[in-house]
């Protein structure tokens, strides 16, 4: 299974940083995704007017829809945490999506990228909890019966730490699995149409995995915001 040909890595080869590019292609592609998102954002907000232009209306639909969906789940006080959720969704969606273009590699096919998306969400959950409840946030970990509190704290902590693992490994496994199956199909069947069903499934999986990550993050924020039972 030979090394795939990646355009940006070849570009870096030309510049002379080829060694770095060959070892860390996912870092270079995540820079590329950041560039794409920043350029889209700048283009969309260049001249905001009441009568929207083409780009602005596209982004209004996307961001407005996501905001309504988020506030649906978290309630009205979750509106100020919408930016991190929308960033996570758009970043992961574009990251997954560029994997479908030949010559580009999805950065989320590497565990480091997905961990880097899951850990800030986890930290933000606790920041939100402490911001909303203050020191009484610990009551969410102790459960209803007071003399079971030490056991409940341990169990709840393990559950919280498992959230990081589940978020990151779910996304990584989906993207890595898709890459593996595509490369094995290329190796085995070789013709142009053999990996086509996997690519169609990959299109669905890209969107669904980004959406599930975003939805789970929203639900974790909701759980941190609500009153303890």
């Amino acid at each position, binding site marked *: 299974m030979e090394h795939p040909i990646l355009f940006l890595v070849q570009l870096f080869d030309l510049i002379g940083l080829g060694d770095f590019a060959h070892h860390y292609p996912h870092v270079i592609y995540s820079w590329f995704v950041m560039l794409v998102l920043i350029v889209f954002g700048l283009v969309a907000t260049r001249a905001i007017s009441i009568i929207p232009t083409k780009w602005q209306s596209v982004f209004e639909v996307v961001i407005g829809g996501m905001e309504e969906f988020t506030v649906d789940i978290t309630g009205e006080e979750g509106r100020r945490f919408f930016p991190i959720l929308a960033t996570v969704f758009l970043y992961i969606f574009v990251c997954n999506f560029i994997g479908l273009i030949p010559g580009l590699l999805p950065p989320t096919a590497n565990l480091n990228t997905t961990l880097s998306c899951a850990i800030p969400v986890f930290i933000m959950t606790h920041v939100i909890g402490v911001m909303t409840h203050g020191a009484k946030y610990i009551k969410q970990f102790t459960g209803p019966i007071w003399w079971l509190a030490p056991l409940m704290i341990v169990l709840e902590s393990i559950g919280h730490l498992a959230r990081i693992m589940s978020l990151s*490994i779910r996304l990584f496994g989906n993207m890595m699995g898709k890459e593996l199956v595509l490369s094995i199909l290329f190796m085995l069947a070789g013709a142009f149409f053999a990996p086509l069903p996997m690519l169609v499934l990959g299109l669905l999986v890209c969107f669904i995995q980004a959406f599930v990550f975003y939805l789970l993050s929203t639900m974790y924020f909701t759980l941190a915001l609500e009153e303890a039972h």
Partner: protein
Amino acid sequence: MFKKLSFSTLGSAFLLFALSTVAYAAGDEMAISALKYFTVSVFAAGFAIALAAFGCGLGMGTAVKSAVEGIARNPESSGKVTVTMLIGLALIEALCIYTLVIALILIYAHPYSEPISKLFAVH
């Protein structure tokens, strides 16, 4: 049933020793034990994925069954029911993906991976 089971264990033991003759021929101590470890862990990885896919198939089938029944009962709610079903399917599929990651670790990233890759990199 017992005949099939004993046949498969005999077959796997045969495979184990057949593969280690490659290492015995090379005469390398480390490679012999590495190859035995590798054979067993590849075997385990195959069974792990099979069992996980079985369980996830049952779970997802139940989810789709309930979703289709809900839509049949109330066709107007088909949008919400479909979205909820897709989210549920993604979460159930994640369990199979965890098993896939463990199986990949067993095949590619186990402690004996250097001797094994040296052994298989002859061609």
